[in-house]
């Protein structure tokens, strides 16, 4: 039976793992290679490394970080942040990533999704969507908006419609982050996750808001997520992926155990 994936996310800035609350107030949380290895050892099904403040000067730092992190990592490894061209993606793959996640650049030029998929296969392309809902909107879920540049600017696209286009262009997975929930530890946005998951035929990874085991049970059930991403819940020893999965298993969620 296919299991629900628990993905450990490392937000990186200048070669260090950091964690923000609602995309700001960044604090240092350690070395990416060491943390990735620890998460994999402690049962994470996959590692995502997001370069949250990718700049041109930072590219080499990122590639070095990816190379160092990938060296002893034998679970799927996805890298995102600042990937603007198929060439950028090729460098990240060469450094040891199995998948790349594209966000702002894919919105600016959606053919980037096609281009990376053609060269590296759809399974290697994750389209990351930063979503913000306006509680005042007529239909807060259907009207949820895509934001770009680390959540700083609206892209003028509806989340569900953009997810569909990404799939049509050959994305292998959608990584959906709720900006309203990010870093709050108050639970995933299950309604929005379910809306996206039902709209596309590819796996959806839910992100933003993990705080308790019940939040994961909820997003795998009501939220129809295929995988869930967690960062802050792990970094400070709150829990390990294994602890989380043991508790999820008890709650009836199918997960990879032993791990």
């Amino acid at each position, binding site marked *: 039976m296919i299991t629900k994936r628990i993905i450990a996310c490392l937000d990186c800035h200048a070669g260090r793992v950091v964690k923000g609350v609602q995309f700001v107030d960044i604090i240092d949380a350690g070395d990416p290679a060491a943390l990735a290895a620890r998460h994999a050892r402690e049962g994470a*099904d996959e590692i995502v490394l997001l370069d949250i403040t990718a700049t041109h000067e930072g590219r080499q730092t990122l590639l070095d970080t990816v190379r160092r992190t990938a060296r002893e990592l034998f679970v799927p490894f996805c890298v995102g942040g600042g990937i603007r061209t198929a060439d950028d993606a090729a460098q990240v*793959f060469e450094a040891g990533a199995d998948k790349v996640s594209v966000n702002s650049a894919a919105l600016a030029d959606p053919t980037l999704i096609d281009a990376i998929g053609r*060269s590296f*296969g759809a*399974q*290697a392309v994750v389209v990351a969507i930063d979503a913000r809902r306006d509680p005042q909107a007529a239909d807060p879920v259907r009207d949820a908006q895509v934001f770009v540049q680390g959540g700083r600017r609206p892209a003028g696209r509806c989340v569900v419609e953009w997810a569909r286009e990404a799939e049509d262009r050959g994305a292998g*997975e959608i990584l959906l982050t709720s900006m309203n929930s990010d870093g709050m530890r108050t639970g995933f946005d299950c309604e929005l996750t379910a809306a996206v998951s039902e709209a596309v*035929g590819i796996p959806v990874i839910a992100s933003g808001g993990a705080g308790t085991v019940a939040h994961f049970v909820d997003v795998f059930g009501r939220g129809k997520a295929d995988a869930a991403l967690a960062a802050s819940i792990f970094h400070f020893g709150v829990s390990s992926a294994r602890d989380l999965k043991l508790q999820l298993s008890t709650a009836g969620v199918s997960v990879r155990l032993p791990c």
Partner: protein
Amino acid sequence: MVVYAELILHFSLHLSFERAAPMRVTVIDYKAGNLTSVLKTLRHLGAEPIVTDGDLALVESAERIVLPGVGHFAATERLDATGLTSAIRAAIARGVPFLGICVGMQWLYAGSSEAPSQPGLEHFADSCARFSESQEKVPHVGWNSLEIRASSRLLAGVEPGEHVYFTHSYKAPVTADTAAVTHYIEPFAAAVERGNVMGVQFHPEKSSATGLKILGNFLKWEGAE
């Protein structure tokens, strides 16, 4: 001080390689996706991967062959165009242990509905097809379990219920040569094995300790029985 320690480490690694030559594995590059993970994992297991995208001599002298693969079945056309198909066929006939991964496994069959005009090696008679239409998502992405046939050498030591990582939309049917079955939408061949020819639909290089054990079995395997 650190530099000195690294020099000693480097020197001792060098000596250990001189004592026992690492196992050479010819890895076929047909420009379908990314080889880095497979190469890294083979090196981690003590093997020395040698990559070829068309040097037939490297296939002719191969001790072991790995055909990785992510992406589209149509990419295997390059194996025909470069003469690698014939060279691999001859190597398999000589008894060289062969492992196909993902599309590399599917290529061992007669073909795939993903690229109907592109023939496979036809080492196994059946063809690969897309998962049937259902409520479930395609591609099948994630960790799934294996039902292992007792006779499998490739999967020796893998316990029931151990999980491996899959990412694919096409799959091979369950037949007498199937070494492990996985269930997603329908039962399909997660691994195939006959004589010196083996294939895995999942990615052992991404399947944690279970995957390392399986690749290790392939590297340790002495030859056809």
